[in-house]
């Protein structure tokens, strides 16, 4: 085990220069990074170093490029913020690993286990599993736990979270529908600051579509507020739900 970890740690350099091209290997290393603080900070330093190598290769771009890029910018919608920088890495085109049968099997097992205690949400989780490997990864996390709470406006909210993976999945059932122009917004509410964690979209049977939120840290609470359509950067109304996650 020590040997394996050491071996993984050595990959910080190769990772910083994008020289781990095997997806499985890179995924394994990224998982290791989430657990290994020193590795993560070493990767940051080495990525900065690599960027300087890149700057040394600077050369004037073709002049026509400026107009093209600025024109493209003017007609391109920007992505909404996320609460965790890592999701950009995951969103890299062409590099999203496929959900393997092994992971599927593990997450199914976890789902069945959870179903015993949280029968209500099994269907939602099942949908979530097939939708997104990141969701499956949270469900499959050894420390995954589920919490359910009734909101102040009725209906129940359920969170499955993994502190090890800094992620949670939020689902709800029976929240009252909102008038048009309003939306339920999800928040990660930490002692330092409140971060938007996504909007709740109406799903079948009065449920909301499961939302995966990353960047969860110990001490965070999960909140839901009613906001203008499109969401806001900070809550503007009293939360209809504040949920404390057991640590």
């Amino acid at each position, binding site marked *: 085990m020590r040997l394996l970890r050491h*071996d993984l740690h050595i990959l910080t*350099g190769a990772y910083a220069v994008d*020289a781990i091209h*095997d997806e499985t290997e890179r995924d394994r290393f990224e998982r290791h990074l989430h657990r290994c603080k020193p590795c993560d900070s070493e990767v940051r330093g080495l990525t900065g170093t690599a*960027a300087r190598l*890149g700057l*040394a290769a600077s050369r004037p771009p073709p002049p026509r*490029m400026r107009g093209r*890029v600025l024109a493209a910018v003017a007609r391109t919608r920007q992505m909404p913020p996320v609460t965790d920088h890592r999701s950009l890495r995951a969103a890299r085109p062409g*590099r999203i690993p496929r959900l393997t049968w092994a992971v599927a099997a593990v997450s199914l097992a976890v789902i069945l286990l959870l179903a015993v205690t949280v029968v209500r949400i099994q269907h939602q989780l099942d949908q979530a599993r097939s939708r997104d490997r990141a969701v499956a990864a949270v469900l499959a996390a050894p420390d995954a736990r589920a919490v359910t709470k009734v909101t102040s406006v009725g209906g129940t909210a359920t969170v499955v979270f993994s502190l090890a993976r800094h992620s949670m999945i939020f689902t709800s059932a029976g929240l009252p529908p909102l008038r048009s122009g309003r939306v339920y917004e999800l928040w990660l509410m930490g002692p330092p600051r409140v971060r938007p964690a996504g909007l709740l979209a109406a799903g079948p049977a009065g449920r909301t579509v499961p939302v995966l939120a990353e960047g969860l840290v110990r001490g965070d609470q999960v909140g839901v507020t009613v906001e203008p359509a499109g969401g806001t950067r900070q809550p503007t109304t009293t939360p209809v739900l504040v949920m404390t996650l057991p640590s």
Partner: protein
Amino acid sequence: MDQRDMRSAGPGTGLPEGRDQDLDGLLILVARGDENAFASLYDQLAGPVYGLVRRVVRDPAQSEEVAQEVLLEVWRAASRFDASRGSAVTWVMTIAHRRAVDRVRSAVAAAEREQKTSQLLAAHDEVAEAVEASLERERVRRCLDGLTELQRESVTLAYYGGYSYREVAGLLGAALGTIKTRIRDGLIRLRDCMGVT
């Protein structure tokens, strides 16, 4: 092109001193949809982005295409920039490098590269020349000179060549573990030499 601009650059970054923080600020404005801020960011980073992409991809037309994609990605994903994890320059250059590597790894490019393996070490020389070509690149060059030959070859083939560490090991006839270690040692030595925090 504008050699004077290049020469006024601070050590290491290739950008004037204090510019890093300015760029962080610009990127935050960009995240809020400020197109003027993006234009300023473009003027400062299009050269580094294009130069790096061109170094890895080599084909001018493809490089231009990838550089445009990268800069548009900077616009689209600006809200995902997290200053606590590194500077704006690093963030942008990291996207540029990944996109460039993705491009050379696409199936067509891979097929072409099969035939070009013999040109590989020549590519490396070209990198060394290009790095040496300019005064403000002196620091990077000097730091590269401080590496052992195997460290330098491993780092430059992986970074500028866009090769995986396995490919680098094959090209240099060294064991995988050796190359992994050399890339890391080499980067650590560069980091210490260039004073990256």
